[in-house]
């Protein structure tokens, strides 16, 4: 029994402290170093934030530069696929033009109906919100891990981007800025588990919190009134209750799944976002 314990201790000591011929550091030293870094990072010492910011900028840019060959491969593959898809689309579009010609006269009616609905929802711009910042940025890395669903964009504090700013893809809200470096920023997507957004459902006065689940076609609404059932094909807008976002920004839409279950999907498509707009909470102009 004692011999077995001695063997175990010797093996552990050998694994931790013994350096092999080509090893420059012992595992014990590196483990201590890792623990020190985690502790320093946790307690946010002033020099750690600047070190982290420099390290982030450096790693992100190296990552972007050396990902170009991989991106070229993807680009060529997509282009070829798109070419064949265009041929099919062309046939389909010819048919659709015929259909749209017939629908042309309905447009005038739909436009006026849209105006009436906007008035009914009363989502006109709120003057309490400062609306003075908007910048177009490029997505340089699309990060999806077990822990965070986020994007990296190519502008940071050097262009006035701050934590908490909103990010739009086309006209739809996509996420918020959670980390800023000098040259880059990180966007937390609305699909992330950590994302919480106060919203209102179209055609009702129901307020709720929209939470991510990691999937863009299955978001979750929390704090709904008891016995409230969500209807399909309803747009979900920001309520502005957080005091930062303008109310009335379209965020998500309810839809009926194949299993006849009402689910919520994001209006913006983070996978397709290449150029996005960063604003300080106002609706994307």
């Amino acid at each position, binding site marked *: 029994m004692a011999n077995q314990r001695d*063997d175990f201790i010797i*093996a*552990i000591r*050998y*694994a*931790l402290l013994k350096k*092999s*011929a*080509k*090893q*420059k*550091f*012992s*595992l014990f030293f*590196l*483990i201590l*170093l*890792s*623990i*020190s*870094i*985690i502790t320093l*990072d*946790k307690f946010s010492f002033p020099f750690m934030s600047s070190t*982290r910011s420099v*390290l*982030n900028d450096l*790693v*992100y840019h*190296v*990552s972007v530069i*050396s*990902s170009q060959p*991989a*991106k070229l491969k993807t680009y060529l593959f997509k282009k070829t696929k798109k070419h064949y898809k265009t041929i099919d689309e062309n046939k389909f579009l010819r048919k659709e033009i015929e259909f749209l010609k017939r629908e042309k006269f309905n447009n005038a009616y739909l436009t006026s109906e849209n105006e009436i609905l906007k008035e009914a929802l009363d989502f006109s711009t709120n003057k309490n919100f400062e609306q003075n910042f908007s910048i177009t940025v490029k997505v340089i*890395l*699309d*990060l*999806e*891990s*077990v*822990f*965070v669903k*986020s994007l990296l964009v190519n502008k940071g504090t050097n262009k006035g981007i701050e934590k908490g700013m909103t990010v739009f893809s086309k006209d739809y809200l996509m996420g918020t800025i959670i*980390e800023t470096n000098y040259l880059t920023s*990180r966007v937390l997507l609305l699909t992330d*588990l*950590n994302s919480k957004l106060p919203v209102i459902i179209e055609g009702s006065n129901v307020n709720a919190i929209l939470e991510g689940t*990691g999937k863009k076609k299955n978001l979750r609404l929390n704090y709904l009134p008891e016995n409230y059932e969500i209807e399909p094909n309803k747009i979900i807008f920001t309520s502005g209750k957080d005091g930062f976002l303008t109310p009335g920004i379209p965020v998500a839409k309810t839809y009926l799944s194949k299993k006849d279950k009402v689910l919520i999907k994001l209006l913006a498509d983070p996978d397709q976002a290449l150029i996005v707009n960063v604003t300080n909470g106002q609706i994307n102009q």
Partner: protein
Amino acid sequence: MAKLTSKLKMLNIKQAKIKLFTSLPVISLYFFSFYHFQIPEVGKIGIFSFNFQMILIYFYVLKFPEDLGFGNIFLAGIINDTVIGIPLGTTSLSYLLLSVVTSYVRNATIRPVLTSEWFAFIPALFFSNLVYLVIINNFSNISFYYLELIQNTFFTFLFFPIFHFIFSQYQKLIKNN
């Protein structure tokens, strides 16, 4: 004289080639620390996602520790943390603990067999992921996807024999040449 120069040149090229091939595990480790989110073909095939770095570290620390330095493992972990956006040092500590368990397995094993190495990967993965979760839970406010993590760990374990075979063949090829 000219013959001697050309011979020396040949020797230098050969040495550089050998250096490149023996450094390939380290290069791959850094490469996947930078890119494992961007290349869907590697490590992110839908539900079959797996952690390539862990397989690489486990194999090389177990079989060819001279080809993969602990310093490199530490640095790759730091890069990984930066890219993912989790507290600095988390992945490093996780990889280093994997290395500790692997070193222990190496020292305790008398006759290495694939099956025993494969099953010894379970405690190595367990301790490594446990540290990961504990740090993420206590040192950050990040929520994470348990199911994806379990899937990832399971497939990392499942794919080990395939990569064991590939890496072994690669090492044989280097040694023969």
